[in-house]
C-alpha cells in the first residue's frame, strides 16, 4: 500500500488565477481519505492531478515516496472510478472489467480468475455476459468499482462515484465500498460533495473551498472543532446556526437575546463583535428552572425520532433546533429554548476563524507533535527496511 503526498501543489489553467493554491497533505497508506467541498472547489482537480490526468503547475506530488509529477497515469499504479461510470458500451460486463489487464502481463486464465473473484465480491457473477445498457445503474456502478478493484492497484481514486444513484442505493454501495477498502487495505482517495457521505466513510477528510484547504482531520474532530464558519456550516446534516453578536461589557447581545459571559470572556478578548455558532442538536427546550429564551416557531418537521424546529433569530437569520422525540408544536407559537455555555462556538467576524482557547491550542499542538512523531517513526522504519534490504 502506498502513501500519497502533496507538497504546495498548485494548479492554474491560465497562469494567472490559481484553481488550487498550495495544497499540502499526506495521505497515509491504507487510509480512506475523503476530499469534500462545494462544486467548483477544486476537489476533482486534485484527484485528476493525483491520477496524472492533469499537470501540476507548481509544487510536488509524491506517490509511494517517489516524485510523480511527470509520471504517466499508467505508471502511477492506481485505479480510478469516474462519476458517470465510463463503461465501454460495446463490451460486455466481463470485457469491461478485464479491459486493459493484458498490460499487466496477466494470462487469459488469470484475467478470468481475477474477474470472477471481483464479480463475486460485488455480486456481479450473473451479469458478466451482459452489456452495460442491459443492467441497472446500481450494477453499472458496481462494474465501475470492479474495474478499479480487479487491477489490484494499491491506490484507488473515486470521483463522486455515487452521485448518480438514488439515496437508498447510495447508502448501500457506500458501505460496500468502505467494506471492500478495509478488506483489501488499499489507499482510497474519494471525492464527494455530500458531507454525510464524507462523514460516514472517511478515516480522515479534507474540506476545500475555492481551491484552498479549509481543514484536514478526522470526521468527528472536524464536526466538533470546525476551524472557521465555512467548515461549521458545510459539515453537519444541518449547518451550524450562526449569528453575529455585539459584545457589551460582560455579556453578548443579539437583538433581545443576551448571553452572560462567564469563562469565555478571556476567549473573546477585546473584540467588539463576535460570531456565535451553535449546532442544532445543542439547542434544547428550556426546563422550568432554566433561564430560557423565547422564540417564535416558524416551521416544524417531525421526523419520528427527532423534531426539527425552525425559528427566526435576530432580524433575518433562520435557526434550526433539533429536539429529540416528537414535538407537536404549532407554527407561530412561542417556545423557550436553552443552550449550555459549553456548546457555544465563537468565530472572529473579520477572519471567520474560530476563536480557540489556550487549552485547545495546547491539545492541538500535542496532536501535531504526535503526528510528526508518527511521520518520523515511519521514516526511520522505511530507512531501516532499506538498510536491511541492502545488507541481505
Amino acid at each position, binding site marked *: 500500500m502506498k502513501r500519497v503526498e502533496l507538497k504546495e501543489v498548485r494548479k492554474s489553467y491560465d497562469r494567472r488565477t490559481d484553481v488550487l493554491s498550495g495544497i499540502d497533505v499526506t495521505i497515509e497508506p491504507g487510509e480512506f481519505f475523503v476530499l469534500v467541498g462545494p462544486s467548483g472547489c477544486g476537489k476533482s482537480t486534485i484527484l485528476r492531478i493525483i*491520477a*496524472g*490526468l492533469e499537470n501540476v503547475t507548481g509544487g510536488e506530488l509524491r506517490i509511494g515516496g517517489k516524485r510523480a509529477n511527470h509520471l*504517466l*497515469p*499508467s*505508471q502511477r499504479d*492506481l*485505479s*480510478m472510478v*469516474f462519476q*458517470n461510470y*465510463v463503461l*465501454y*458500451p*460495446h*463490451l460486455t460486463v466481463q470485457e469491461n472489467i478485464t*479491459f*486493459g*489487464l*493484458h*498490460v499487466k502481463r496477466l494470462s487469459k486464465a488469470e484475467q478470468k480468475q481475477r474477474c470472477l473473484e471481483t464479480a463475486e465480491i460485488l455480486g456481479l457473477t450473473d451479469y458478466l455476459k451482459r*452489456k452495460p*445498457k442491459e443492467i441497472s445503474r446500481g450494477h453499472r456502478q458496481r462494474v465501475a468499482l470492479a*474495474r478499479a478493484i480487479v*487491477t489490484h492497484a494499491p491506490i484507488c481514486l473515486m470521483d463522486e462515484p455515487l452521485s448518480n444513484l438514488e439515496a437508498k442505493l447510495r447508502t448501500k454501495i457506500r458501505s460496500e465500498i468502505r467494506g471492500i477498502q478495509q478488506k483489501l487495505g488499499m489507499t482510497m482517495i474519494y471525492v464527494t460533495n455530500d458531507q454525510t457521505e464524507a462523514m460516514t466513510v472517511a478515516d480522515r477528510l479534507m474540506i476545500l473551498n475555492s481551491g484552498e484547504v479549509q481543514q484536514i482531520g478526522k470526521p468527528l474532530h472536524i464536526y466538533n472543532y470546525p476551524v472557521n464558519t465555512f467548515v461549521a456550516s458545510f459539515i453537519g446534516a444541518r449547518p451550524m446556526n450562526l449569528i453575529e453578536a455585539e459584545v457589551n461589557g460582560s455579556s453578548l447581545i443579539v437583538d433581545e437575546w443576551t448571553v452572560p459571559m462567564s469563562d469565555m470572556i478571556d476567549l473573546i478578548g477585546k473584540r467588539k463583535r463576535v460570531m456565535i455558532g451553535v449546532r442544532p442538536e445543542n439547542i434544547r427546550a428550556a426546563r422550568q428552572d432554566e433561564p430560557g429564551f423565547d422564540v417564535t416557531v416558524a416551521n416544524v418537521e417531525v421526523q419520528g425520532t427527532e423534531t426539527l424546529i425552525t425559528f427566526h433569530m435576530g432580524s433575518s437569520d433562520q435557526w434550526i433546533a433539533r429536539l429529540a422525540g416528537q414535538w407537536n408544536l404549532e407554527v407561530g407559537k412561542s417556545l423557550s429554548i436553552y443552550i449550555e455555555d459549553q456548546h457555544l462556538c465563537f468565530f472572529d467576524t473579520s477572519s471567520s476563524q474560530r476563536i480557540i482557547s489556550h487549552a485547545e491550542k495546547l491539545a492541538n499542538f500535542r496532536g501535531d507533535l504526535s503526528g510528526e512523531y508518527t511521520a518520523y517513526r515511519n521514516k526511520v522504519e522505511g530507512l531501516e527496511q532499506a538498510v536491511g534490504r541492502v545488507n541481505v
Partner: protein
Amino acid sequence: MYSLMKAGFLYLVPSFMLFTVFLFYKTVRTAYLSKYITDMQGTLATFVDIENFTYLFTSPAFLTSAKATVLFVLYTVPIGVILALCLALFANSKLRENRFFRKLFSSTIGMSVVASSVIWMFMYNPTIEVINYFLIAIGYSEIQWLLDPSTALIAVSIGSIWMNIGFCFFILLGGLQNIDSQLYESASIAGVSGAYKLRKIIIPMLLPTLFFVITVSFINAFQAFGQIEILTKDGPIESMTTFVDSIYKDTFINYNIGSESAILFFCIFIVTIAQFKFVARKLYY
C-alpha cells in the same frame, strides 16, 4: 376508436402525399419504363418485358461501364474514408494549433465539383505538368495521366478522393468529439497502447458515424459525374464511362429512356437490398 383512427390517418396524409409525388410515383414509373422501348422522341413504343435487362447484361458497353463504376467506387471509398479517419484522429487532439488543421482539412467541402475538377485538370495537364514535374524530380518518367486508359481511372479517383475528404473528415471529427473523453482517460490509467485504444474504443464507438460516412461516400462515388465528364471528356475509349455517365448519354443523347430506366431500376434495387442488409444488422449498441 374509429374516429381516432381516422384522425391518425389524416395526420399521415401530408407526408404520404409528398412521398407519392416525389418518391413512389417515380419509382413505379421507373419500373414501368424499364419494360418499354422508346422511339426517337422519347415516347413509349413497344412493351418488351425484361428485354431491356437481358440486353443490358449482354451489352459490352454496359459491362464496361459497370466495371468502371465498381472500380471507381473501390478506388475512392475505402481510401477516402481511411484517409479522412487518419486526418480526423490527427486533428482531434486538444492542441490549439489543431483549429488551423481542422479548417484546412475540411476546406474542400465548400468547393464545387467543377472548380475542383478544373484544379485537378491543371495538375494532370501535360503542358503545365504539376504532378509530372514531381514525378520526374524523384526519377520517374512522365505519365499521360488522363489519356492513358490504365491511369485515367486512377487519376480521376485521386481527384475525387480529394474532393470528398473534407466532408468525410468533418463528419468523422464530429463523431470523434462525441466520444466521452473519460473513456480515453480511463484507458490511459489502464495504460493500454494507442493501437489497442483505436481498435477497442475508438473504432467501435465511431461505428455509427463510420457507417454513415461510408454510405454517403458510396452514394457520392456511384453518382460521380462532373469530375469524370470534365477531366476525361469520356476519356480514353470507354474505360471511363460509369453508370451515371451512360444514363446521361442514353437519355439525352440517344433518347433511349427504356434501357436507361433499366439501369436506374437496377441501381435502386441493388442499393435497397444493401441498405436492408446493413440496417437490419444491429450497428447501434
